[in-house]
């Protein structure tokens, strides 16, 4: 078991024939992801990476029954691509592109919600169910199959966390990068209950950062609904106020969104909070018992 995606998930790629889209789609196919085609306007009818190309998402779904779309279109076209996917009936859009305007994401997410489509990202590494399905840009080889679910705002901290978990002798069920933009799709509070319900997931790693209050909301939910052990790290304890730290959403505004308040809230909810990401693996070994 796993959450959201597995080896049978049928995936299309929006922005399939572009440089980024091509490179990463190829890597995903090599990993075993069931990519059934792609969409690039005016290239419908062509074949790319041995898969059919369609002009629209609607045509792609009609021909392939795809349920998930991996989006690589340039930033200015992300909003449009997400809304097209939503209306065509895609169930989950994984938005990799970095630098989409915030206003576009407000509109696109509202429209996706209206049409019952889930979104991940933008500006995220994607989602991977270990040894089954990779939809995104993460290095597949570090994700060994196992019993730990991982959810993170940061791409490289996802790799760091997963790598440590695997080095301790455990592995990953599904790892999800939710992105660090001001407006994102699925977040802790939608994904944590999925891990709770997944019989194979025995512990959860949650990686957050400064800015916004998603981690505070997560603390509340964990206290009420999550019985599996959670290990958390919040990046940015040493970040100065009022400065955007790489991710557009990673900013301490006045006194709000600090790492300290998030760590305290999570600790109060019974989460094992580590002060350094170097401790994630050890903390998982502690909560699951040494292998």
């Amino acid at each position, binding site marked *: 078991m796993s959450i959201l995606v597995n080896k049978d998930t049928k995936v299309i790629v929006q922005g399939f024939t572009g440089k980024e889209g091509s490179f990463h789609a190829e890597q995903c196919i090599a990993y075993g992801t069931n990519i059934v085609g792609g969409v690039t306007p005016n290239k419908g009818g062509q074949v790319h990476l041995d898969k059919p190309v369609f002009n629209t998402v609607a045509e792609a779904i009609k021909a392939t029954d795809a349920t998930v779309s991996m989006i690589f279109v340039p*930033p*200015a076209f992300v909003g449009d691509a997400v809304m097209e996917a939503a209306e065509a009936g895609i169930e989950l859009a994984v938005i990799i592109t970095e*630098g*989409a*305007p*915030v*206003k*576009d994401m*407000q*509109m696109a*997410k*509202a429209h996706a919600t209206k049409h019952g489509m889930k979104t991940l990202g933008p500006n995220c*590494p994607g989602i991977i169910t270990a040894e089954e399905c990779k939809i995104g*840009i*993460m*290095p597949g*080889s*570090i994700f060994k199959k196992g019993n730990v679910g991982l959810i*993170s*705002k*940061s*791409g*490289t*901290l996802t*790799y*760091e966390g997963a*790598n440590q978990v695997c080095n301790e002798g455990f592995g990953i069920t599904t790892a999800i990068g939710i992105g*660090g933009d*001001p*407006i994102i799709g699925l977040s802790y509070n939608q994904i944590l209950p999925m891990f709770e319900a997944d019989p194979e997931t025995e512990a959860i790693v949650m*990686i957050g*950062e*400064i800015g*916004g*209050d998603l981690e505070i909301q997560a603390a509340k939910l964990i206290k009420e609904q999550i019985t599996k052990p959670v290990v958390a*790290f919040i*990046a*940015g*304890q*040493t*970040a*100065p106020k*009022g*400065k955007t*730290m*790489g*991710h*557009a*959403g*990673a900013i301490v505004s*006045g*006194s709000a969104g600090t*790492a300290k308040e998030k760590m305290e809230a999570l600790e109060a909810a019974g989460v094992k909070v580590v*002060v*350094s*990401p*170097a*401790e994630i693996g050890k903390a998982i070994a502690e909560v699951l018992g040494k292998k």
Partner: protein
Amino acid sequence: MNIHEYQAKQIFKKYGVPTPKGIMVESVKDAVTAAEQLGGPVWVVKAQIHAGGRGLGGGVKLAKSLEEVETLADEILGMTLVTHQTTAEGKLVQKLYIEDGADIKEELYLSVVLDRKLEMPLIMASTEGGMNIEDVAANTPEKIITVPVDPAIGFQSFHGRELAFGLGLTDKDEQKNIIRFASKLYKLYMENDAEMIEINPLVKTGKGEFIALDGKMGFDNSALGRHPEIAAMRDLTEEDADEVEAAKYGLSYVALDGEIGCMVNGAGLAMGTMDTINYMGGTPANFLDVGGSANAETVAKGFEIILKNPKVKAIFVNIFGGIVRCDRIANGIIEATKITDVNVPVIVRLDGTNAPEAAEILKNANIANLIVGDDLGDGAAKAVAAAKGE
């Protein structure tokens, strides 16, 4: 991206948001000419820097004669202004805004920001104008009115009524005026991809009209591509020169005041690296995300920027290669040490894609002050020790 008050007011005027008349100047002589042109009898001389709290810092002053305009312009132009929003070193005032005095009956507060929880713009208003809104929120939260506006329907009259009644306005003309004001402000917020607009104070005049006495605007960097006229308002002298230089090479850099320079891929891991150094008893000198397309040139540039800071006693390179291949980074480091004179210990931790090859490359290069870290914890510990001279 932030802009100056005088630039924000140019945009306000375009949208019919009332502001006092004013002229931006860069010399004392022009300040007097501007004041003559405006006519008086009262002027406000305002320092133009990208930070709030200018009044308290002595950067905003009232002049009642042309002579006074001259004296104040001379005093403020070239001063280094320290406010609660600047660094301790403050900001050099290079531009002034000479503005007509306003008829002030009441000072209010009005802003539009993105509410990340509701995922839509939020209009905030308060009767407590002229104060730091964070203090108002902390001490008297009941005095802040918040009205979210769903972009799908846009600003409606009821949004305006909520504001008007929330501010305790009972006069029908005043209600109409504030509704019209807020409606225009929302329109310009949306049309220009603003991140925030803050008017503090918003002035109610004796005639019951509303005027933006101040204006602060920030924009979504990701949307600047479709607003060239706003992108052109960028004032690079207001930004940190090293951050600007780094950005040219796709590096995201923020200076801190510690001793250990950091070069990391990914924003989250970059912050996590700073936190780990701190946890192990060291102090990070900077945040630096080399991004996903790091190569020899960007790595070299990173070293150059880090080493400009004389406080740096060691550099910790922490890369978890995903798409970025570690062997390329290793070669980049070797190239960088050839181009730049790296005179402090460099601790390198490379993990992920092609890490074993990278370790081999670094070992064979025989660089004198290069130390290999086995993992994040080990690398950070070695960097902290090296910075202490151990």
